[in-house]
């Protein structure tokens, strides 16, 4: 019950947000197609193989990559393993409760996983050392630490930046399938850089990168993950309302316009590594 204090938006505020959006204005001064300021810092968790901290406005997410050798999945002996996990921890918001992952934690992890897998971000076939026996298992753990809306996009950025930042030891495989670890480290085999873009429907308007307040007011949201060449590699609709076909087309166009600029931020991280 205490969380209702944070999820019930005052009626006058709701009215103000909705009526301003009809005029194309957002309460924080942004245009409908404008993202909040993004900052990405990598290498924030030194025991991780790769890590990143992303700020999207006041929303902050930390992601870490841990890599270890292990068995592949039985049905894909020639591929490495990618596991994405996310947790909406109570540290980040008074509306998150402690406990095992609930449907929101799981949805977040699965959406990010799908986007990364379908792009594909990681070339899982290049993470095999001994087919069927020894492969790299890459774990991506996503932890929002401050929730001010649009955790999905911030999480996607953090996960991708952590993967770009990650370094794993180089192994050589002997004729007897023994593994020799070298001193050298190498980056993960990354082939694409998917970017997640979430849009919210408020009345008849579509706005990009909803803030926490806008999420309280929105009718529905839609997330697109986009590859470097503009393909869609994941979609997730959320919220209680629905989208018309026209609204979806508009949202997709807005996402396609926004994605390259967001990707530039990731690429500059990649460049500075």
């Amino acid at each position, binding site marked *: *019950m*205490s969380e209702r204090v944070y999820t019930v938006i005052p009626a006058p505020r709701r009215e103000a947000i909705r009526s301003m959006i009809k005029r194309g204005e957002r309460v924080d001064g942004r245009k409908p197609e404008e993202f909040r300021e993004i900052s990405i810092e990598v290498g924030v968790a030194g025991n991780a193989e790769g890590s990143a901290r992303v700020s999207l406005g006041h929303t902050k997410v930390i992601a870490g990559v841990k890599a270890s050798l292990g068995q592949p999945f039985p049905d894909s002996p020639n591929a490495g393993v990618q596991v994405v996990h996310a947790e909406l*921890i109570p*540290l980040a918001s008074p509306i998150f409760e402690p406990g095992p*992952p609930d449907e929101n934690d799981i949805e977040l992890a699965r959406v990010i996983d799908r986007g990364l897998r379908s792009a594909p971000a990681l070339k899982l076939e290049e993470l095999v050392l001994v087919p069927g026996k020894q492969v790299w298992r890459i774990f991506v753990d996503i932890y929002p*630490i401050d929730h001010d809306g649009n955790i999905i996009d911030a999480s996607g950025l953090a996960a991708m930046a952590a993967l770009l930042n990650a370094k794993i030891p180089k192994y050589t495989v002997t004729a007897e399938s023994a593994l020799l670890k070298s001193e050298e480290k190498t980056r993960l085999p990354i082939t694409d850089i998917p970017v997640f873009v979430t849009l919210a429907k408020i009345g008849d308007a579509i706005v990009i990168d909803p803030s926490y307040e806008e999420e309280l007011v929105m009718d529905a949201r839609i997330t697109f993950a986009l590859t470097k060449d503009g393909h869609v590699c994941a979609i997730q609709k959320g919220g209680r309302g629905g989208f018309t076909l026209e609204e979806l087309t508009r949202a997709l166009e807005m996402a396609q316009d926004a994605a390259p600029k967001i990707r530039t931020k990731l690429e500059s991280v990649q460049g500075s590594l």
Partner: protein
Amino acid sequence: MTEKVKVKLLTDDGKRLDGRALNELRPFRIEAGVLKNADGSAYIEWGRNKIIVAVYGPREVHPRHEALPDRMLLRCRYSMLPFSVVEERKSPSPTRREIEISKVIREALEPAIFLEEYPRTSVDVFIEVIEADGSTRVASITAAAVALADAGIPMRDLVAGVSIGKIEGKLAIDLNGLEDQHGEGDMPIAMMPRLREVTLLQADGRFAPEEIIQALDMAREAVLKLYEEQRRALKEKYSKVSLEYE
């Protein structure tokens, strides 16, 4: 504490592997008020430890039936992020170690707080370890006290802590991960600096009674240094106070 491989933790000239003297602390730095949502927050870097703490409270107790009629309910959750450890990824579910540490951290902070001031409310302390390198519980307590103060929680004193360990028969302050793993003992200690009251004291390994007294003395000195940093962090966060409005 393992007995498997004997790792030499002291060099021939008596220095520790990271170059420190036995009574030398690792460098530490605290930042207060780093999160928007939390009522109070702090981030600490101590050696390679990186820990973030959020405090929510006083706020309504959830679930309601857990509310105490005459005081605030203090709850602490210490958790290590899966990528915070050197070895294999840590499973996200709470381990027995994390549960015990959550309890002793709560009991280390509780004596400092004026719980009676806000009956039937709760103050929740959330600790997430981003990078771990030995003595994380005392680093967490040190940061948590800053987060509590940042949240405006009424307290008798801050709380700060340090670990004292044993390396090759000698007492050493502020064990890092390697020293904790391969040393002969670990004694985490936390105190209220002004009141000189010990609120956390644990030990594993073997210590002679005089060593315990000595360890407490070493801890007290270190706690005073940590206290200065706690104060500095809080003052710096709010140093933009102006008496006149420009």
